[in-house]
């Protein structure tokens, strides 16, 4: 019997409870604001730290990179582009395999099939090619991967022929060297992230996608993969290299690998960026701070979405540290342009350093945020401000708990009944309601939204299949399904509260449960995807703290409007609109439909959790808050 079960038992704990109940409504908003200010301040240069190498075995950039075969690279690029022009509808696997075979590497094909789950359920086939360069003087126990996605002309993404040509040229150069201690796998994938996910699933014999993705088995392997680099080269002249880090569900690669990519680009005098933005020349100034802050927010937006920004995201799931290097020619970027040879030397330098490793990456950070290419905010720096922002939820939950009646104290009940008979005051926050806990009234308010969320998530796929028979495109079906659920569920309070309306203690209990659930969501999400947790906390804390029954109708209306603004559906629509500010409304809606369908497919095939969490946790939470506002 401690504070939790009988909060009003002892004298001192009763005093503590009273202090908390009295001051919490003031303290929580203050802590929220302080946390937000602290977090935003972390983007300022003196308040974060510079990246450094923790793994000394990397010896990055110490060796002179000697790749100089630029003419071979140009010849390969030209041949590949001619091949692609001849066969625009297929991936030129025969050409790629012939090139690798001529170099003496072991070349293998890999076929995979995807049974598309939505709509009419078509079947997609794909094929990857990979070539293994065996280490000349050591056993094939470890491997490094250099992968490039092949994009056909006409694909939505920019062409990537230069990267495939670089793979062949680098394979030729690497083959002549004697210093490789690990096997090197050159992987050319099809269908963007699907090809890589399938290859890795087959390599590790781990099924992905609950039977939707049939990856088969690989004819040849190369040992335990230690690290991987994904290459996307959009043009033969390079203005800058963007180092992409965000992986599936916000997982990030080891900071040593990211730092190494930036360091070696810097050594070869190639401009390197993070989030597509180079560093501000004067980071201590106010303009510098704004620049860093914007870079930080970009990273948080892409980490919160949970979709990998490049093929490297799928390697991270297997503990293989990976980054994507995207080299492009941006007219707006000042500075000299580099050629493909420079980029090849960067890759050579990275592979020489990775070759030095005896252990997997384990020294440096796995949880961080980067406001600039050479700065990082570690988990130790961003967790305290996050905790401040979110602590209001916990404090309010505690306050609601303390205000609940004490079911064991019959004396108190009689006292309260006596007080009630005299005449009770309404709306006083310190009043102790005297009824026992109304579980029968509160339970449906909690279970019904959760059941609705679960049914929604499970029912989206059958819905698309049903509507596809009626001729609806899948995107529109998903959009319509979610919109219907969102709008229809607004009536939920009327249904659950009709039979047994909530008393005051019922409302308190429901608030307590809602706040605890929200706290649970954000604090656990903060452990592995801080951006998502922080965004949800920032938007939901003020709403959750103020979501209660208001006796006056205008206050209720205002609360409803605020709640509608943070509805998960509204939020994702706003996110899509913010991501493409120049589009007209129709285009935004079309993009939103596509985004929802893609989120669903990602959830089913790759295991991206954003849609799942939004449907099964966030939507029920929102509905509970809606019930609280409308439970009178």
């Amino acid at each position, binding site marked *: 019997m401690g504070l939790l079960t009988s909060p009003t038992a002892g004298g001192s704990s009763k005093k503590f409870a009273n202090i908390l109940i009295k001051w919490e409504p003031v303290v929580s908003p203050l802590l929220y604001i302080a946390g937000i200010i602290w977090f935003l301040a972390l983007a300022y240069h003196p308040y974060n730290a510079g990246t450094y190498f923790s793994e000394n075995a990397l010896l990055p950039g110490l060796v*002179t990179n000697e790749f100089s075969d630029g003419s071979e690279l140009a010849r390969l690029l030209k041949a590949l582009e001619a091949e692609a022009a001849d066969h625009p509808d297929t991936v030129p696997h025969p050409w790629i395999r012939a090139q690798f075979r001529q170099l003496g590497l072991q070349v293998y094909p890999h076929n995979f099939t995807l049974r598309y789950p939505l709509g009419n359920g078509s079947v997609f086939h794909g094929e990857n090619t990979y070539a293994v360069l065996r*280490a000349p003087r050591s056993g094939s126990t470890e491997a490094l991967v250099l992968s490039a996605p092949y994009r056909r002309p006409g694909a939505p993404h920019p062409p990537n022929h230069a990267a495939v040509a670089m793979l062949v040229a680098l394979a030729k150069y690497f083959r002549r060297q*004697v*210093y490789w201690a690990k096997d090197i796998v050159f992987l050319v994938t099809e269908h963007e992230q699907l090809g890589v996910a399938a290859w890795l699933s087959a390599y590790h014999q781990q099924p992905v996608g609950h039977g939707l993705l049939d990856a088969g088995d690989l004819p040849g392997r190369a040992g335990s993969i230690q690290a991987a680099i994904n290459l996307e080269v959009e043009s033969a002249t390079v203005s800058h290299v963007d180092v992409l880090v965000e992986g599936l569900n916000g997982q990030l690669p080891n900071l040593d690998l990211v730092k190494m990519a930036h360091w070696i680009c810097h050594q070869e005098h190639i401009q390197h960026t993070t989030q597509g933005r180079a560093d501000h020349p004067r980071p201590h100034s106010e303009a510098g701070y704004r620049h860093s802050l914007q870079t930080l927010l970009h990273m948080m937006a892409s980490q919160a979405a949970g979709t990998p920004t490049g093929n490297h995201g799928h390697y991270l799931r297997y503990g293989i540290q990976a980054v994507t290097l995207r080299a492009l020619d941006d007219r707006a970027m000042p500075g000299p342009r580099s050629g493909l040879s420079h980029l090849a030397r960067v890759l050579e330098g990275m592979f020489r350093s990775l070759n030095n490793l005896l252990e997997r990456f384990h020294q440096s950070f796995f949880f961080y945020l980067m406001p600039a290419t050479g700065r990082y905010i570690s988990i130790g720096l961003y967790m305290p401000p996050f905790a401040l922002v979110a602590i209001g939820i916990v404090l309010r939950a505690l306050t609601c708990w303390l205000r609940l009646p004490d079911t064991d104290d019959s004396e108190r009940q009689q006292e309260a009944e006596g007080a009630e008979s005299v005449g009770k005051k309404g709306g006083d926050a310190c009043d102790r309601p005297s009824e026992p806990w109304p579980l029968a009234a509160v339970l449906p308010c909690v279970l019904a939204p959760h059941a609705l969320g679960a049914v929604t998530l499970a029912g989206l796929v059958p819905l698309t299949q049903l509507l596809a028979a009626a001729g609806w495109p899948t995107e529109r079906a998903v959009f319509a399904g979610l919109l219907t659920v969102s709008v229809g569920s607004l009536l939920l309070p009327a249904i659950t509260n009709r039979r047994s309306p909530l008393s005051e203690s019922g409302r308190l209990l429901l608030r307590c449960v809602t706040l605890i659930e929200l706290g649970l969501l954000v604090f656990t999400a903060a452990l592995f995807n801080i951006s998502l947790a922080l965004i949800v906390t920032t938007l939901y804390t003020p709403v959750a703290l103020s979501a209660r029954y208001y006796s006056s109708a205008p206050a209720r209306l205002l609360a409803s409007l605020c709640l509608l603004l943070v509805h998960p559906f509204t939020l994702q629509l706003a996110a899509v609109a913010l991501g493409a500010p120049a589009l007209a409304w129709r285009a935004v809606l079309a993009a939103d439909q596509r985004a929802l369908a893609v989120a669903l497919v990602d959830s089913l095939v790759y295991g991206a959790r954003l849609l799942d969490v939004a449907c099964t946790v966030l939507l029920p939470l929102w509905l509970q808050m809606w019930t609280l506002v409308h439970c009178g």
Partner: protein
Amino acid sequence: MLIVVNHIILMLADDMACNPRNPRPATVFNNANQHINVYGSDVEVDYRGDEVTVERLVRLLTGRLEPSTPPTKRLLTDDRSNVLIYMTGHGGDGFLKFQDAEEITSTELADAFEQMWQQRRYNNIFFMIDTCQAASMYEKFYSPNILAVASSQVGEDSLSHHLDSSLGVYVIDKYTYHALDFMEKLRKDSKKSMADFLRVCPRHQCVSTVGVRSDLFPRNPADVRVTEFFGSVRHVERTDRLVDLGDGDTETPVTVGTRVETAAPAPAGSYRYVAQFPVMS
């Protein structure tokens, strides 16, 4: 300036020369010019790989090796031998790292030297160590006739000298580089003293401060030639005259040129080597 190969015992982890990462297989260079392969055919590695452990080093120093150990792997020194011990690698305050798995502490080393003294396995020891915080390793010595030099003090790091950018590694440390430089300029008849050698690599060259322990050494290092420890030079004069060494007491002078035939006096007592592996039965 050389010590004959069969007077050298070399213990290496030996994972560099034939490492798959070595761009010049089977070679080890100590200079970026890559002129001399120090892992050449005249190098004999006595202990390599898994044999290089703290236990093996202590057994080697104290002589407690298995009966099957060949003589080339034994430290066959006696009470007139001057022993040079050079250690390098990763170290810290009071320890030197062995092979990523264990460490030898300064106390262990000091005790090993004391055992050597009690067994009369050395006349003088010259101890050189090039690691980080190297001076901590000689702090605990308590046996006589030891002269020690270390590349850095406690709290200081010993630094590498230069990078070979075609190999991608730092090939030699600052103190060892300057010590070798000093050695390469010596000849067999050089008059340089140990004090000169102890002054090698001052602060402005080594960045770390070279430490010296000379309180256990009975003579002034300035009076000791470097060739006493390096080069095993002995001044030999050939004669075919008989030398009378007397009766063993100090009053009869030594005379030269007289044929004397006396029985050698019986020794007062005799020393005997203790059995290397005590029989415990």
